[in-house]
């Protein structure tokens, strides 16, 4: 019996290796304009 189902997610520690290109969108810009969240942003790194 498997008690834990791990959902496929981005490995945040791994993302440090080639991260930080800065191409992704600024937080609330082009969208809600009144709150900040980065979880719903797309990674736009083309050098991964």
């Amino acid at each position, binding site marked *: 019996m498997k008690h834990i189902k791990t959902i496929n997610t981005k490995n945040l520690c791994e993302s440090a290796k080639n991260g930080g290109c*800065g191409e992704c969108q600024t937080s609330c810009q082009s969208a809600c304009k009144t709150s*900040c969240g980065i*979880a719903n942003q797309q990674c736009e790194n083309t050098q991964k």
Partner: protein
Amino acid sequence: MIHQYKLGEYNIVLDTCSGSVHAVDEVAYEVIALFEGNSRDTVLSLVAEKFAGREDVTALDIEECYDQVVELKEEGKLFAPDNFAPMAGKLKEKTAGVVKALCLHIAHTCNLNCSYCFASQGKYHGERAIMSFEVGKRALDFLIENSGKRRNLEVDFFGGEPLMNFQVVKDLVAYARSIEKEKGKNFRFTLTTNGVLVDDDVIDFANRECENVVLSLDGRKEIHDRFRVDYAGNGSFDRIVPKFRKLVEARGGKNYYMRGTFTHANPDFLEDIKVMLDLGFNELSMEPVVCAPGDPSELTPEDMEIVKKQYEDLAFLMLEKDKEGKPFTFYHYMIDLTGGPCIYKRISGCGSGTEYMAVTPWGDLYPCHQFVGEEKFKLGNIWDGVTNTEAQCEFASCNVYAHPECRDCWARLYCSGGCAANAYHSTGSVTGVYKSGCELFKKRMECAIMVAVDRATREE
């Protein structure tokens, strides 16, 4: 650090620092809750006690479950330590001086007179004004000159109501398109509009040139017309809805947000979401009002509880619509667990005042649209660049570790420390914490992740 919660049919465990998400059964839920700080024997006996009398939960089950937790911990997917603090300032340090996005305040005036407007009917507590082509052109040149190696440059046409100065919007886009190739850039434009001046020309332009359009609609007619009125006091719902429908139909699948605001008048905002869906819109955003404390539209503590329940019901509605084959999106629930931002982005905080700035009709630079009119935050102008380096430093040092309250928060890598403007307006400091905003943000994340878990589970 972990965060556990139950929502719908799921028991969910989030591992903050690895970003791992686990859907667990009730035995694992208890084992994980007791795991840190207790010996193996203690955990096994406490869990056995909890499930005493349950024939379906054997001692062997509990042991097996405990071993799975140990395994996940060893793989770095549970109780992962936070080793990111030394990286917190790195991204901004590395990109110091690079600007990649501007919010152009094309018109500090508006054809609607919404009392809840954070921009005081588009005037930002100042004079009415519109941006000239010369100022806008210089702003675009400033952006290119300061964008370093960034290829994607974002420009928002914002106001007030930008369509009150539509010719300048069109001329600026034509100018940007004429130079982007030779400069090695890709401009992405967004238009935010209240819809009053939308016509075929606007529709054609927006759908051809704008990566995104943000269309202001509060949902139910009586809710929308309560605040979104013209200067004669007439509601705008009946005028704008047919225009928005035409625009969205013609959009051909390009992004848009039907964006509403909820206030003390409609904490039951799910009803407004349903109206938007009935009108045929399916890319939705609904935001809590941003207003001064004591404003009549401010959400009360009682409203907050209603709002949290609405967020849960919204998540359930999304799953229901998924099953009907009529999916819709909600801005705050668009979480991409496998392709979201890297850790640098997650800890660096909002880019306001550094990579993102707002430009007034006069060419002044502010850290973002929500700071326009706050004189002490004026950073400089598009001709001389940033001259108020002290204010800019405050924003450059703003990251998730700059907020002491965020250190123990499970949601910190989903919000990146929150909105600097909300923090400033509620605490007087950009590194403060807007508590009620956090409360709603955390609820939204729990709901968004539950929806993502359900979708991932069904895909399999």
